């Protein structure tokens, strides 16, 4: 589905990453995790066609990526909603480009709004919504276009823990139902392990893939699943060289970095059952 071949990116002399090779199958949920500056966001932007590479190529089903295309749609870190449009018009915004029948647009928009539990809010404007609701609208706006690939660039990192948990479950449901190929960039280990089939670990400058961890746990997953803890620990160990940097700079979670401490984890699953 997605073939990344020998991809390089540099800004002048500064190498962001080099020689990235990655192959993603159809319907796979793949997370990319790594410390800040490893180029994970740049990578997903190149796949989206919003940024250009300085070498190598990205192939989507035998076609090389050149610019944006509605077969792969990105969900940004901040919801990036259009403030002058209400929820349903925001969701319909991209759809209008590929679908001409107003009746069909309306049906699709209503369907997706029900799916993300925002149907009651369809006439509200972005400034009237909470952060979690905005991000739901943003996800709905992308999914409604029925892209082959959904790209997500740290979509939940600006949200509080409870909202994030809720959205994890919603995203999991959407993914199980639609079986879209999802490429998901995050700096949150738990999020990556809980949601994806594969976790790609990237190292810092010059960035590159350190490891590719398969998470063979059936969906739907609960974050209390012990297999997930085990995998989390594994990813965590592999990232350890870089981890202190991430911890200080980015992680929103009150993670405890001493190994084998379980006590903190109980506190951290709070909100999962809500």
């Amino acid at each position, binding site marked *: 589905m997605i073939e990344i071949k020998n991809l390089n990116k540099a800004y002048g002399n500064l190498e962001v990453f080099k020689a990235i090779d990655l192959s993603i199958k159809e319907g796979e949920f793949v997370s990319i995790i790594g410390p800040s500056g490893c180029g994970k966001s740049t990578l997903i932007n190149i796949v989206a066609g919003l940024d250009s590479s300085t070498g190598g190529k990205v192939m989507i089903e035998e076609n090389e990526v050149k610019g944006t295309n509605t077969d792969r749609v990105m969900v*940004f870190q901040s919801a*990036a909603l*259009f*403030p002058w449009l209400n929820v349903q018009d925001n969701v319909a915004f991209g759809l209008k480009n590929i679908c001409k029948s107003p009746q069909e647009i309306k049906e699709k928009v209503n369907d997706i709004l029900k799916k993300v539990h925002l149907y009651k809010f369809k006439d509200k404007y972005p400034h009237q919504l909470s952060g979690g609701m905005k991000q739901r609208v943003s996800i709905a706006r992308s999914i409604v276009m029925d892209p082959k690939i959904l790209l997500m660039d740290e979509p939940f990192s600006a949200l509080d823990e409870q909202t994030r948990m809720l959205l994890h479950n919603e995203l999991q449901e959407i993914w199980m139902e639609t079986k879209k190929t999802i490429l998901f960039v995050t700096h949150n280990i738990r999020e990556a392990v809980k949601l994806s089939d594969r976790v790609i670990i990237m190292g810092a400058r010059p960035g590159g893939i350190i490891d590719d961890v398969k998470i063979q746990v059936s969906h739907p997953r609960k974050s209390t699943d012990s297999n997930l803890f085990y995998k989390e620990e594994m990813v965590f160990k592999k990232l350890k060289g870089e981890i202190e940097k991430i911890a200080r700079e980015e992680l929103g979670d009150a993670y405890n970095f001493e190994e084998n401490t379980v006590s903190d984890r109980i506190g951290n699953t709070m909100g999962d059952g809500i």
Partner: protein
Amino acid sequence: MKRILFLIGLVTLWEMVYRLGIWPPFMFPSPLDVVDTLIRGFTTGNYTIALLYSFRRLIIGYVIAVVLGTVLGIIIVSSKTVDETFGTLILSLQSVPSVVWLPLALLWFRMGETSIIFVVVIGGLWNMIMSTATGIRNVDPLLIRCGKNLGYKGYKMFTKITLPASIPHIITGMRMAWAFCWRALMAAEIIGTGHGLGQILMWGRDMGNMATVLAIMFIIAITGFITDNLVFKKIENKVFERWGLSPS
């Protein structure tokens, strides 16, 4: 409440100065004289007609300034060369008070409506151009990226994303343009001819009737205040709220 007390205080002070009799009444009329002139002006219909005349010019000039300003603003941002040449010219023209154009206008369009409307257009135009250009330049790049990502480009991207995203700046520009046009109109009417408020003010001066002058000044101030605060400021606040910006 504070404002009302202040106004009462101000009028009382005015009346007291008047009673002291430092200046003769025709030079320094009492508040009552002014109120009287105002009532007479409106009951005979003179002021109403003058107000209508002024507003007609103002609205014609303002609409031209806003439409032309928006179009020119768009042209300026769309080309770097235009921006570096014409854009710089506008910046320097902005510092020229629009009434300075009146002699030229009188020469080009003769005495009458057109030259006054021309000055009104000039009054609001530069500001409108700059506001539109700034608005378009300051559109959040994320929204543009998001639009690309959803399959928008070129003309459609501009009309569906760039332009709506710059509306808060454009509205502020429109409010300022209104204030500038209003000032330009009064200046032009005082010097030019016709039946507007500015002309009545000048008659008052010529006849040595300061009550008329003050009455007209009062009308000008109130009209400006009402349109700015009750009309434009409200629209602006609403737009800013919708766009998720804090009101200025």
